[in-house]
């Protein structure tokens, strides 16, 4: 316990832009909800650590002081049956501590759960699937997967992001520790959360509610960009898919197999919704919900044998020939 307490003391100073211990350290917040949780956490940690030190000292003292001595006279010690004053004291003092902790907590709950977000807030719908994330920007006509892009929020002109949380199947939980606490995505039970990242950069997280076989590889990446960069990204993502005749063979294979039952490519016949939208697949850094970097080799492996990257994923191996896999990989490589 003691090394852990010491570590906590050190960790709570890790507020730098690049957190030292972990990219998912809850003690390195970069957004208002995570920041106000940190403030409350440190207060609660302080109170509980003081209680620990006090009771632990009493316990060690009692065990050492009242151990049976080697020169014990064999008599029973004086029998004490209780003391109303003492017991009243250790009832009333904890009650006061609880009241204080409760009031501090209630304030932060209200602050985070009843925010007044400005009119310029970005709206995003996040939909949890087994085992990937769908992100839709209503009004901006953008649909993407696994990699959420949001603008940085300048405290002078805040542009927070309000995220509506839905589930297409089992329960999931949206957790990017440096931005906010987690909120579950539950079918028939719409939830929401909000973030206002103060610094640009990549923030990592992952699904935090057991959702099935590949819960572990339902990873989550949030790209916080400057407003200009974000607007350019939105502009690029709202275009239909690029069409290149050089890969028409791959497109034919893609559109003639069951790929299109699950995947959509805007502007083509592919409009499935079970799997991620592939219109701008090449603009993403990872595939398989963060399980592998988005390289042509990984894409080949993923199409040939999804279980090699993510055993138990819902994407089936399509049993394509090697030539067809190459053609489809080449086609997907043009979806920028």
């Amino acid at each position: 316990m003691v090394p852990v307490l010491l570590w906590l003391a050190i960790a709570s100073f890790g507020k730098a832009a690049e957190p030292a211990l972990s990219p998912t350290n809850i003690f390195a917040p970069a957004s208002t909800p995570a920041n106000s949780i940190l403030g409350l956490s440190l207060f609660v940690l302080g109170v509980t650590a003081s209680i620990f030190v006090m009771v632990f000292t009493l316990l060690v003292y009692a065990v050492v002081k009242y151990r049976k001595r080697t020169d014990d006279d064999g008599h029973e010690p004086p029998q004490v049956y209780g003391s109303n004053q003492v017991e009243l004291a250790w009832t009333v003092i904890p009650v006061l501590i609880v009241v204080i902790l409760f009031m501090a907590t209630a304030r932060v709950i209200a602050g985070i759960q009843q925010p007044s977000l400005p009119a310029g807030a970005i709206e995003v719908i996040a939909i949890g699937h087994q085992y990937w994330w769908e992100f839709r920007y209503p009004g901006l006509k953008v649909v993407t997967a696994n990699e959420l892009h949001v603008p940085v929020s300048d405290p002078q002109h805040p542009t927070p992001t309000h995220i509506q949380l839905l589930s297409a199947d089992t329960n999931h939980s949206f957790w990017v520790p440096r931005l906010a606490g987690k909120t579950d995505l539950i079918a028939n039970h719409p939830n929401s959360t909000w973030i206002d990242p103060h610094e640009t950069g990549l923030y990592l997280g992952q699904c935090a509610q057991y959702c099935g076989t590949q819960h572990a590889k339902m990873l989550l990446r949030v790209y916080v960009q400057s407003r200009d960069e974000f607007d350019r990204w939105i502009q690029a993502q709202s275009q239909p898919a690029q069409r290149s005749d050089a890969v028409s063979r791959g497109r034919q294979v893609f559109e003639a197999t069951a790929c299109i039952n699950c995947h959509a490519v805007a502007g083509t016949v592919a409009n499935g919704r079970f799997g991620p939208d592939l219109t701008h697949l090449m603009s993403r850094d990872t595939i398989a919900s963060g399980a592998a970097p988005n390289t042509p080799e990984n894409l080949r492996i993923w199409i040939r044998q999804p279980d090699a990257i993510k055993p138990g994923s819902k994407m089936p191996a399509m049993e394509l020939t090697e030539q067809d896999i190459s053609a489809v990989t080449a086609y997907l490589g043009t979806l920028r």
Partner: protein
Amino acid sequence: MATELLAPSGITPAGPRPFVDRLHGWIATVDHKRLGVMYILYALVFLMIGGIEATIMRIQLIVPHNHFVSPQVFNRMFTMHGTTMIFFVVMPLVFGFANYLLPLMIGARDMAFPRLNAFSFWMTAFGGILLYFSMLGANGLYGAGNAPDVGWFAYAPLTSQTFSRGHSTDFWTMAVLVSGIGSIGTAINMITTILCLRCPGMTLGKMPLFAWLNLVMSGLVLLAVSPLTAAQIMLTIDRYLGGHFFDTQAGGSAVLWMHFFWIFGHPEVYVLVIPAFAYVSEVIPVFSRKAIFGYPVMVAASVAIAFVSMSVWAHHMFTVGMSSHANTFFVLSTMAIAVPTGIKIFNWLATMWGGKIHFTAAMLFSIGFLFQFLIAGLTGIMLSSAPFNWQLGNSYFVVAHFHYVIVGGILFAIFSAFYYWFPKMSGKMCNEALGKLHFVLFAIGFHLTFDFMHVPGLLGMPRRIYTYEPGRGWDMWNLVSTIGVVFQAAGVLIFAGNLLWSYFKGKSAGSDPWDAWTLEWSTSSPPPAYNFASIPTVRSRRPVWDLKHPEDPDWRYE
């Protein structure tokens, strides 16, 4: 000695009875002591199985991207580990000790309903067998996996036919349902026994704390297990009769299952920990050589904990999107539990204060319980603060927290109970040196595994993941946690070896090896059939103290 007096003279038994006879004697028994021992042995077998499952998980998590087991196997392991440890290890253990000791401590000759007692045991036993039979019988028509893999709280809609094909979830449902019926039977039996069969002079206010705490526990079992049983029936209706209680694809509610499960699940924690309180409330006074400090307040605090524990369940659901008002209410009710719990810790401390502490293996485990239960309570306060919980919930911090409660608290208290009452149950002393070695190894292993497990939670590691990404700062903490398993396993093996060795080779215990004060120590070890030749009469909470100290009996002060 007492058995010698009871045996008719001049008749010598014609050698040991045949094995089949003895086996039949155990299987058909309605004797509370034999049933108690059967509960305990049954639970020890499952403790080993659950421990192996935990070890498999820890090996898988020793380094990132490990390939020791597949995700499917890992998910089955954590489901089976949780279900086994809660329903088929700790519950049978606490029922076993209560069964064995309650009639002895209140001066009764058996439980109120001996046949119900046997029925309850066999239901529980059948439940455990059903759960593990899934590994053979659950393949189903689709070749879907075998053992259940939905997690021990089996959140809907993962349990619906859509997401859980085959029969693995059905085996889980039926195992929990069947053992739940056994638990309810035992609870009814204990409440009746305590209320109706106390010996003359033993008013409610003169019962040992052990009896009080088991009374409270039994009340909680009735209140908590019933909704769980109802929920399992509803789930089965969903799966087989076209119901839509929890089936979100047809308009059902996943959150409804959560409420059902946790209104069982949280009181369940107290069903398990209140008997642990009972053990340390007997062990600490005897080995501090003092009466329990503040008996009436201890009773009141126990009842208060049970009462408040019925209104805190949704603190398991802070992240499911309840309104801020609901969240605030459950913060308050949860934090309120800290008050009576704190009173209990302080009263145990005050019992040791001014005493003469004997560091037997039993006492060491009780002191370990106090220390670890304190920390578990404090991390519990952190988790009760809803915003902090939004970060900590469902992370490894929670896993560390509840293992601190269940292993560091409850299991340490159970080991304490083993070392304390083994002489009574077997008539033989447990080997103290091995007991202390067990304590040291298990304490080292426990702290290595679970102290360090808090940290990856704070660094964003969610629970129930079969593997994790490198570069998140989680590697070292997981490595240390896994190393701790080696020490824990060594400790448990020494414990098992100690029980066996002491049973066959231990020195005779006599009726009262600890110089203790409650009624079970006034009869022989092991107690004869029907416990007492004549029903005792008591005048205080420590009747055997009164016998030993006629010049200064307790009843003068109570």
